[in-house]
């Protein structure tokens, strides 16, 4: 910014950009997909190409590992992921996002996609998960159980009611007759975990798989009501897929070969 004239233009551009950002505080990450031709019956047994898998945030350690194994078994294929809150992902899929496979953290979220007739096959449950309390390793809030979530003086974060982990949280609060006083409703489970990991929250409600994945960064506190608010993880290939054989193949791979990895990550068997 040493020259007297040019920076003005640069500055103006920057200002305009910032104004634009302010105007569009929210943006869809995906563009709308063009109408896909009906998936042709897989006449070619050899798989190739790239698919996009939208998956619940809690699957973000297991799925990439499964995808690597899948890609190794089928050279020339690439599996990309978009992890997020299941409800947000479902909303994007219903809005026409170009996604090939969807794995949700609840059957109700998957139902919004099946109801819109966007699944190419019936969803299959691959795993189940239970909630667990996560606290920073030193447990600065001295959290002992669910009842602490009703204490206003503790900094508590949970998922928003609109995402599966938040719906499950409301369920366990009701079961434990705790009137929860959260300090924040986060858009997905990863955000809850992060706030606990950084020590900003005294406690958060996450899945037991998240506690396991976080290792020493958080301490998990199991509670009895968790076993009565189990969430299921259904997966289904989507009808909008431009690469139906690959979408189906990856879905089948996860269903048939995913059990060991899912169990190792702390997921419960599908039933």
């Amino acid at each position, binding site marked *: *910014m*040493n020259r007297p004239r040019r920076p*003005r233009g640069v*500055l*103006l551009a*920057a*200002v305009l*950009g*910032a*104004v634009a*950002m*302010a*105007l*569009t*505080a*929210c943006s869809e990450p995906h563009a709308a997909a063009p109408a896909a031709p009906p998936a042709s019956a897989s006449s070619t047994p050899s798989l190739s190409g790239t698919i996009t898998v939208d998956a619940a945030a809690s699957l973000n350690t297991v799925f990439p590992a499964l995808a690597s194994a899948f890609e190794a078994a089928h050279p020339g294929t690439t599996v990309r992921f978009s992890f997020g*809150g299941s*409800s*947000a992902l*479902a*909303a994007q899929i219903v809005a026409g996002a170009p996604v090939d496979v969807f794995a949700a953290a609840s059957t109700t979220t998957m139902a919004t996609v099946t109801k819109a007739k966007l699944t190419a096959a019936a969803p299959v449950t691959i795993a189940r998960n239970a909630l667990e309390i996560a606290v920073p390793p030193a447990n600065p809030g001295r959290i002992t159980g669910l009842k602490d979530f009703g204490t206003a003086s503790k*900094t508590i*974060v949970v998922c*928003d009611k*609109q*995402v599966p982990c938040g719906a499950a949280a409301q369920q366990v609060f009701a079961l434990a007759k705790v009137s929860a006083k*959260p*300090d*924040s*409703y*986060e*858009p997905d489970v990863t955000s809850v975990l992060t*706030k606990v990991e*950084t*020590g*900003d*929250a005294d406690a958060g409600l996450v899945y037991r798989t998240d506690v396991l994945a976080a290792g020493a960064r958080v301490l998990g506190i199991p509670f009895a009501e968790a076993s009565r608010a189990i969430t299921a993880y259904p997966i289904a290939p989507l009808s909008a897929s431009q690469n139906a054989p690959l979408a189906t193949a990856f879905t089948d791979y996860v269903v048939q070969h995913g059990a060991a990895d899912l169990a190792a990550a702390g997921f419960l068997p599908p039933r």
Partner: protein
Amino acid sequence: MIAPAVVAGVLLAGPLVALLVRAPWDRLGALLAGPAVLPALGLSFGTALASTVLCIVLGVPLAAVLAGSDGWPRVVTRVARAVVATPLVLPPVVGGIALLLLLSRTGLLGRPLFAAFGITIPFTTAAVVVAQTFVGLPFLVLSVEGALRGVDARFAVAAATLGASPWATFVRVTLPLAAPGLAAGAVLSFARALGEFGATITFAGSLPGVTETLPVAAYIALTNDPGSAIAIAVVLVVVALAVLLALRERWLTGLRA
């Protein structure tokens, strides 16, 4: 020339037109007064006003210092300007992460603050105001600095020769002459604060009535209650357009002065 210009026009205006076309106009009033939007509406305007005041209180002195920085080594002014302008080009989420690292309970400044006074900033309305001030401040500082530099220095000299103190000269002579720039900067920082999303959800969290501002509420509502999300979007678009129309071209001149 024409074709790309038309594409640019469609790109800029198209999304806004789509939003206005798809807006649930018949239910708009009910949605805005509903439980999903009303607390966010009050919170957003309150925090945006508070952060604008904070921007003025903190930004005008900074702008005055920068406007008088001609005698400094060039590298210092350059770095100072770059630091001031950074939030303009920084992704807001990154701003939120940076604010967390500074002010969270385990942060650089937040840890001693918590240890000494038991103060935690994240998850409070104050955190929303801090995030909004962070992103809005550059608008005010750059606009006011430009305006101050455009003020004829002879007025200040005349005031000084008539016995006015430097403070009185600044407050009663220079600053009033720079008022259009100050007004433009304040309105722009207000608009930016009102639209702030990334830094807010990262740093302040999301709790209705406390930290859930309009953009955050719109983002969360979009999954299950798109009607409310669109209603909020309409409010934000209308406010943004009103701001720019009210300023006419003055927000440009404020920066150019």
